[in-house]
């Protein structure tokens, strides 16, 4: 095809034990937004890394605007007009916006001229940004703008965006889409990777779907339903979580005026967080990352202690109790970071099961570990939650993200919590595992536990929450019934588009 900007033919890349890409071929046309879909491990990131020159393919060719294209390193890719916005932003917290942008350029002008050009581009494309600010102080949306402007300053022909909206508020997504549409009109081709199928239906003209490293389908997302695309990704049918209606129970967890400084640098202090959860209820707490989610989890789990009256469990003041004391009373937590916080990566699943379940499952006696019981507990988690692993003696590190997440959540649920608090339960987990985890949380609630789900995925919160509250700069909005909330209302609860007012004032 002569009208393709980038033509990919037969790309294959194998790693020891796994074929990441197998005979992948498709075209990206100029002036278009092309979606790349697939579950985790489908080979999307290997493919884009190949295009960006971070990975060299074992076989296959690429053609960029009619010329053979095989970048040995990102520098060559950038020189050829390929730019990339990374999923986990590749920014340097301690450096300023202008310095960060200079680092991504081949031949940057002196910082003062660069600042002027940044201001120019940010005005042209409606991406407000102050070049002198330190990146560590920016919101997620603003950090993404840094990456996008860094790319645009190189006048690319192809822009790769890896999960760009996963950390943005709805208003910030609107700003981003306006910018992307403008870029498309100017002739740019955009390769857009996302899990959010509704966004792809709004934005993209073409979609290529990967499964197991192969192209399994291409479709026009504007004419294909999100459900159909999800099924093509998974290669099967998808179950929507369902739950039985529940009667209102009595309040078990009551948080009143929870205020605490953050124990971390660049953290957010909690300011007067107040909410309560009843038996059988799921409370969803939304918000863009870095608005106090981590601190709230620490304060609820007991890793960070507060005044006793700030957290009450069944009427008892537990704010100053340690995590094990709270666990003994039925308040369990599953933190966001799987590797290193929720699970010890180099320890076996049995050991990880023991670490969390020691008290409630009575896995230790007189200071000695009861290995038989611990192993039994781990086996029960693996069985009940369909964790794909060779067995309980596998190291936690060896599990894929989705499987480890199922293990971590299942481990807490099987301890029959009265209150379960989870942070980002399905982050980086593929669609079928995510559905299973959500269903398990709903089942737990219908058995009479109170569940608090902290997440950045608004669709997820709308799907499983009874009530919804938003965390913004350490403050929690009053909880509202989730049913009937519109995207605009949620966006306003989340504090709108961060930094817009400030940036317009310049």
């Amino acid at each position: 095809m002569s009208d393709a900007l980038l033509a990919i033919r037969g790309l294959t890349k194998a790693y020891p034990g796994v074929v990441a890409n197998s005979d992948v071929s498709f075209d990206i046309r100029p002036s278009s937004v092309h979606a790349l879909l697939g579950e985790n491990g489908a080979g999307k990131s290997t493919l884009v890394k190949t295009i960006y020159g971070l990975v060299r393919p074992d076989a296959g060719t690429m053609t960029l605007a009619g010329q053979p294209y095989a970048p040995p390193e990102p520098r060559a890719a950038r020189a050829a007009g390929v730019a990339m916005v990374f999923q986990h932003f590749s920014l340097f917290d301690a450096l300023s916006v202008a310095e960060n942008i200079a680092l991504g350029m081949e031949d940057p002008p002196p910082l003062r001229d660069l600042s002027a050009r940044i201001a120019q581009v940010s005005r042209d494309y409606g991406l407000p940004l102050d070049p002198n600010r330190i990146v560590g102080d920016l919101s997620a949306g603003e950090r993404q703008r840094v990456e996008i402007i860094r790319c645009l300053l190189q006048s690319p022909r192809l822009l790769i965006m890896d999960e760009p909206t996963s950390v943005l508020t709805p208003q910030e997504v609107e700003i981003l889409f306006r910018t992307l549409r403008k870029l498309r009109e100017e002739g740019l081709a955009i390769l857009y990777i996302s899990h959010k199928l509704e966004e792809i239906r709004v934005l993209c003209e073409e979609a290529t779907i990967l499964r197991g490293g192969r192209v399994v389908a291409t479709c026009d997302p504007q004419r294909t339903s999100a459900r159909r695309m999800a099924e093509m990704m998974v290669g099967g049918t998808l179950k929507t979580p369902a739950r039985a209606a529940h009667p209102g129970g009595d309040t078990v967890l009551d948080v009143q005026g929870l205020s605490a400084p953050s124990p971390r640098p660049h953290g957010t202090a909690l300011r007067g967080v107040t909410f309560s959860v009843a038996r059988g209820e799921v409370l969803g707490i939304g918000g863009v990352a870095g608005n106090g989610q981590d601190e709230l989890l620490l304060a609820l789990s007991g890793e960070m202690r507060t005044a006793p009256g700030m957290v009450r469990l069944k009427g008892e003041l537990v704010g100053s109790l340690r995590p094990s004391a709270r666990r003994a009373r039925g308040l369990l937590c599953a933190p966001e970071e799987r590797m290193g916080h929720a699970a010890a990566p180099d320890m076996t699943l049995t050991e990880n099961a023991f670490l969390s379940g020691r008290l409630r499952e009575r896995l230790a006696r007189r200071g000695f570990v009861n290995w038989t019981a611990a192993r039994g507990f781990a086996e029960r988690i693996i069985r009940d939650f369909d964790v794909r692993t060779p067995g309980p003696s596998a190291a936690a590190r060896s599990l894929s993200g989705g499987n480890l997440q199922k293990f971590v959540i299942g481990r807490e649920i099987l301890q029959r919590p009265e209150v379960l608090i989870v942070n980002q339960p399905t982050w980086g987990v593929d669609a079928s595992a995510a559905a299973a985890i959500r269903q398990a949380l709903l089942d737990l609630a219908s058995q009479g536990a109170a569940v608090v789900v902290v997440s950045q995925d608004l669709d997820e919160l709308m799907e499983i929450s009874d009530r919804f509250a938003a965390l913004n700069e350490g403050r929690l909005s009053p909880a509202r019934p989730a049913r009937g909330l519109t995207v605009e209302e949620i966006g306003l609860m989340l504090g709108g588009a961060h930094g817009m007012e400030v940036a317009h004032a310049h």
Partner: protein
Amino acid sequence: MDLTSISPVLLLASLMVAATPILLAALGELVVERAGVLNLGVEGMMITGAIAGFATAVATGSALLGFVGAAAGGAALSLLFAVLVLWLRSNQVATGLALTLFGLGLASLAGQPYNGVRAPPMPELDIPLLSGIPVLGPILFRHDPVVYLALALVGGVWWFLHRARAGLVLRAVGENHDAAHALGYKVLRLRLLAIAFGGACAGLGGAYLSLVRVPQWTEGITAGAGWIALAIVVFASWRPLRLLLGAWLFGGISVLQLNLQAANAPIPVEVLSMTPYLVTILVLVLISSGRGRARLAAPGSLGQPFHASR
């Protein structure tokens, strides 16, 4: 006790000299840590530089050539560290400690034939006119070339880190090596160069002790100066100009305690000799208690091994 025997002018002049070895070593370590590598082997590299420089100077009869040999010796030892830490991804703390032990042993072995040998003298750099200024002249303008080299290096490192493109890349690598790698920068190559620079600087600092300050070879000549240099880097929150202040502060304390000893101050000699190390501990405690402020200034990837994931 006779405090009048302590002349402030001489005190300040010898402060500049006393600060030079730790300033050189700390400056090198600052660059290494800004690149994200924690090399605790400063003491070992310093003493290796001290003997390498001394041996070169004795062999060639030139103290200046001795400093060249010292830089080469320090850098060579640091390359051993670089290979272990960067390519074999060994633990940086353990490897650094091992490097110190290895350096101390190696220097003591190599130094056997040099016990009691005198070093060739270092040329004084009497700057005409300026050295004649009363008070300021003796303090600032009557030193050997290495003192000025150290001061020039402070300015050079500051300029490199904050004005040069390569310095920006170095800071980026130390801040977030994964992001730097994703942008296509050569993390390992840059860290290798930084470590070699750090080794060369530590070697110069060591040679300043054996060729100028003492000036002869004795075992354990560095006497913990490398550890003080490490502490000063933290004290300076990884900034070159504050590093200069830190080095002068510690140089001042060690000169003052020597002077107090000479003036028969009614404090036990042992306590006086202890003061630089006590102050080091005190400063580190004060900084660390500043609720994460020191951690904020620290390079983000400091001490973490880099593994280019495919």
